[in-house]
């Protein structure tokens, strides 16, 4: 359920024309009678007061051919036959196999409306990658569920160690991944944190310091301690409830962090206390940690600085990720965060994204089962990330054994990222998300972005609750490890 702080409000696109699936063509035969504007309930057509002519159709709002059975279908309604609908050739250029155009469009609709799309022409729950979550389906039981939606809890606890540290419960089993100031703009960071606060969940600073604008949201911010230690100070560790060690990223394991000189602007350099305009590298290991007992010492250190905080350990998914996870548990971590190979923005090299880490769906099950065999599963929270794109991915990850998920790209898409993959080049993002350029970073404000994120989280939560209801479950915690509720489409009977 959504916390009372969450308010859903329509928050339309920043752009009049998104990349639409359909092209609505108005021919010269149009007499500007306005019939279409009156009939279309989606607002594709506008007949603005005081204008001589109809506005250009707002294509992206059109639901396409499935409309033809409706009474209000504009093509049929038009007295002059001036309207026609076709597939928009530009749509094919949007997205990729993992993040299909439909999935991006679906996420945009969620961010705009706060609910999953009602149209049925978008396959937004799964992508077209030919593997991973895209090959898994949920097996719903037949018949009607007796569970009332309002009874269903989506809360999960993050501290299961019973060690006297903060007992943190988040309202929805999702939180925002670490994206540093430098890799993304300040409004992006602040809106992520604001949304996390509204949703009673978390977001993470990434490795680029803790901007003061995040201070009001400190109870819902995770301070990341990564290998470059950029911007990490005692007070940034002390002011938060969770500290995350980033050992590696699934998108680029063994490659460390990397911010190219162009994005290292005055303000970024100041925050990191580095030299402006130079490329900033985070080493691939922690040079203070070359073994498990160093790792324990490292965790002990953070626990000494902040006696109340939980410690999350983010690792990528090498072959022995199960051992790494259990080692982290014994070293005192509260949260094991495994980051699989599907994630990553444009800044991670393709060769790394596509080839290094283990697919997250294998890793989750491997770690979950290993922790169970060790008798440690109940004492640690397992969080998965790296390619969790949709509410369905989230549910699949939980069925495989995770307690919850961390998302990155889905949040960016809510802010109208088009997955162009140019995050690292020049001054960054054409859409002002992954940029610290003073002009680009002004392309949207925090209020707009926060609402978009809140809406998207809400839509996911709505979907999650619906799924739990269908499964007859009262809590998302019942879903953990239920691989029996999944089927692989290549092998299902």
């Amino acid at each position, binding site marked *: 359920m959504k916390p009372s702080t969450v308010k859903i409000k329509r928050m339309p696109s920043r752009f009049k024309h998104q990349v639409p699936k359909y092209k609505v063509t108005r021919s010269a035969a149009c007499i500007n009678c306005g019939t279409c504007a009156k009939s279309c309930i989606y607002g594709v057509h506008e007949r603005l007061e005081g204008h001589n002519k109809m506005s250009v159709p707002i294509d992206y709002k059109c639901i396409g051919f499935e409309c033809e059975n409706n009474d209000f279908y504009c093509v049929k309604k038009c007295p002059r036959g001036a309207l026609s609908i076709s597939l928009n050739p530009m749509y094919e250029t949007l997205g990729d196999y993992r993040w299909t155009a439909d999935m991006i469009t679906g996420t945009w609709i969620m961010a705009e409306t706060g609910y999953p799309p009602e149209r049925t022409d978008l396959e937004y729950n799964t992508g077209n990658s030919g593997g991973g979550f895209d090959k898994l389906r949920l097996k719903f039981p037949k018949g009607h569920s007796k569970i009332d939606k309002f009874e269903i809890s989506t809360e999960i606890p993050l501290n299961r160690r019973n060690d006297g540290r903060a007992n943190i419960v988040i309202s929805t089993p999702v939180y925002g991944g670490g994206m540093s100031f430098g890799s993304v703009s300040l409004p992006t960071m602040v809106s992520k944190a604001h949304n996390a606060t509204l949703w009673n969940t978390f977001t993470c600073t990434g490795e680029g310091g803790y901007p003061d604008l995040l201070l009001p949201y400190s109870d819902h911010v995770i301070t990341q301690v990564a*290998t*470059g*230690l*950029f911007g*990490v*100070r*005692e*007070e940034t*560790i*002390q002011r938060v409830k969770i500290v995350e060690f980033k050992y590696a990223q699934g998108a680029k394991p063994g490659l460390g962090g990397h911010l190219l*000189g162009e994005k290292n*602007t*005055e*303000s970024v350099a100041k925050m*990191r*206390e*580095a*030299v*402006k*305009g*130079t*490329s*900033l*590298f*985070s*080493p691939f290991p922690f*040079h*203070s940690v*070359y*073994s*498990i*007992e*160093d*790792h*324990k*010492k490292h965790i*002990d*250190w953070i*626990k*000494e*600085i*902040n*006696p109340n905080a939980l410690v999350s350990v983010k690792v990528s998914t090498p072959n*022995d990720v199960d*051992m*790494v996870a*259990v*080692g982290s548990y*014994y070293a005192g971590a509260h949260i094991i965060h495994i980051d699989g190979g599907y994630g990553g923005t444009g800044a991670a090299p393709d060769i790394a994204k596509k080839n290094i880490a283990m697919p997250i769906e294998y890793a989750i099950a491997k770690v979950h089962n290993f922790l169970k065999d*060790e*008798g*440690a599963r109940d004492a640690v929270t397992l969080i998965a990330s790296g390619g969790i794109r949709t509410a369905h991915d989230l549910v699949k990850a939980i069925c495989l054994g995770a307690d919850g998920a961390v998302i990155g790209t889905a949040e960016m898409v809510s802010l109208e990222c088009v997955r162009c993959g140019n995050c690292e080049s020049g*001054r960054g993002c054409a859409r002002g998300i992954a940029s*610290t*350029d*003073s*002009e*680009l970073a002004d392309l949207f404000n925090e209020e707009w972005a926060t609402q978009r994120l809140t809406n998207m989280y809400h839509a996911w939560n709505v979907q999650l609750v619906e799924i739990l209801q269908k499964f007859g479950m009262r809590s998302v915690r019942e879903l953990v490890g239920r691989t029996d509720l999944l089927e692989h489409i290549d092998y299902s009977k």
Partner: protein
Amino acid sequence: MIMDNVEKITQSRAEICSQVPPLNMNTEEEGGCGVTGFICSIPVTGKNIFEPSAQMHNRGNGKGGGIGAVGFVPEAMGVSRQVLQDDYMLHIALLDGSVCTEIEDTFIKPFFKIDKSEKLATLNDHRSIGLDVRPPDVMRYFVRVKDDVLDKFIAANKFESMDRRDAEDEFVYQNSFKINTHYYASLGDKKAFVMSHGRNMMILKIVGYAENVVKYYKLDDFKAHAWLAHQRYPTRGRVWHPGGCHPFSALNEALVHNGDFANYQAVNEYLKQRNYFPLFLTDTEEAALLLDLWSRVYKYPLEYLIEAMAPTSEMDFDMLPKDKQELYKAIQTHHVNASPDGPWFFIIARNDVKNDQFQLIGITDTAMLRPQVFALQEGEVQIGLICSEKQAIDATLISLEREDPRFGPIADKYWNARGGSYTDGGSFIFSLKDTANGKELICTDKFGNVIKTPKGKVACDVAKRITVTPEFKPIEDKITALFAVSDYSATAGKIYDYVKDNIAGFNPDTLRFCIETIKGHAGKNDDCKQTVISALTLLNDHRFNTGSIKRSSLQHVLKLALDDIFDASPAITEITNSRFSRINFASREKLRAPKNNERVLIIDAEHFEPEGDLCDAVMIVKAFQLGWKRFIVYKYRGQRFTGCGFGPSTKEVRIDIYGASGDYIASGIDGMEIYIHGNAQDQLCQIMKEGKLVVYGDVGQTFMYGAKGGTAFIMGNAAGRPLINAVGKPRVVINGTALDYLAESFMAGDPLNGGGFVILNGIGFDDADGSICEYDSPYPGSNIFSLASGGAIYVRDPHRKLVDEQLNGGEFIEITDADWNLIEPYLKENEKLFAITIERLLTVDGNKKAPQEVYRKIRPLKAAAVKKDDDGLEE
């Protein structure tokens, strides 16, 4: 076909290797661990490996511990000296007691002449010492191979060309291999395995902490010349037998290992090609097998073996003499694919039967990724020590001193090895040989250079009563006179000067009397006490000629005096008008805000935990929150995190640290000052923001990693990777040198414009007279200032020893007046702290030079991207 002996040995194993079942290729996962070892000129008891092991609990997790021992006393073994020297000591761990007879009947009695066999004595109940898993019963057999058996073995394998003893060694190796294959590797439920089978040595291991081996097998009073212990940290939770624990052995050695190989599979292949089949699935076993292959089968001298383990590379290789380069190139060509890759550090205790000596060897990997400390104490008895942490060395020495007062609690020399280097080869070897005067310990590096401590100096016997003679009167009078003042501000300095200037004429009794007399004044009032503390601390910290007395012994005498003074301070439970209040582990709950005149909280750290809620560092933070600002912490034994957790803005705080301080000190500090009166350990000053750290000794690994600012003064050396990824404005003086990778990815702006820098002096102190001497090179490492984009290094390099090859992205330039004006105040402070004068630093070969002739500057090559100050899109 003519085969050499190596081929014959390898071939002879074809049959037994073919019987090894297919094994899981996954290694047992474990990370680093705690390792410790020492070797003494006299046999010492197992008690002494107990303390350092217990100190390194936090380097293991109680799921695996082991000890190795070499060089026993025949009487304690119940055998003759001859049998002890000549027989193999077969130690078989029985995980399932029922196979004992079968093993004896099948693998022992038919082949061996048994001179003695026994079951090792144990405690009755393993749970009484907190062990969850019952350690295996261990059978010990003193054996020689029967003549006829050996004859047949030699004939069958055409071993006639080799030494008969070598053939016997190989028989023992193969026989144990068969036992391990049969009762261990081929079974789901392991039943038994050979722990060790070398001569005059043994290995014991359990599922538990290493020190419990000593307790369980009742080794407290059991004596050996060399001891080795390992705390294991397997990441798997449930372990039911100690098969995978360290030490590992192939024949006459015990090897422990901290780290893990990245190339386990490659080494595995290499070994299999030579008919060595690892059976225990850990990289440590591989290391032991490599050692055996290279030393026993290939008969490489130790130097070659070390080169094969840790190849010399980069500039270090170029610095080698030509003939060494050729030799090493040949070794590397043949064996580099078996050189362990990744972080590792080995300690090996071995019975070097060929050369009739016992040895303790430490080898570090080329990149020095694991912590390591070596130490040496000489005198009436000698001891060499190798550990993961210095505090474990100190714990060993303290324990030994209790057993035999000829040992002192402080070593004469502590140092690190520089992995794969041309300077020391990354390895040191302590060899214990028989001489006319009994056993003598010699320490050498990989190249055979001998490491010595000053000769002809004596230690004080602190247990003895001081015999006061009339000659002591003038000393007493002088000290009394120094205290007969109304203003004490200069007194400490005068006392220090007095002792320093007169110690050359002191014998142990005079010195002890002098220090006792000074100590006596501490009771008078708080000013006197502060003066005494300051004076004794100065004597401890500074380097000067200690005359006929060992510096380590002077430090011991001072430590005892200071501990007494601290101990005598009013307890926290009392409320007095004293400036000092003392708290310890027992009274920690009584912590309160300072009252009346109280200003200094003295913390007896002895019984605090090294980390967690019961760590003294946590209590210090609470004390700070209650209003305490001045702290003295003493009797440290490796506790970590001192100064961490105070939060921002702690300008008025000062912490003085005595004893064996731990890791992560001063990490994250923002304004406070920390003085470490001795060597410091690893990971100091991580993310330090502001404040000051002073270390009267060396610092360990990754010093100031990710630091943002602050100043630090290091009297001695830094280990690997100091100031890596540091940004902002840290300003550091390192008087010695660094092992390697100094200031990698340094990003500390422009030093002339508020940014950070390192001053590297490249000097050390003469062990004999405490005078300042120059190192051969101020920085022998292959990498300095690599990939740095900001900051600078000012290196004292009058002979221009540093070369472009050591840089990767930096450049040398002459220093300007502006540079000198920038660094001079830091050198002045350095002079004040350590008595290392600028005058001396600018003196080269007896001649005073200009700063420009002595110091060089290293700065980033591409003067940090010149950019206009705007973030807009100017295109």
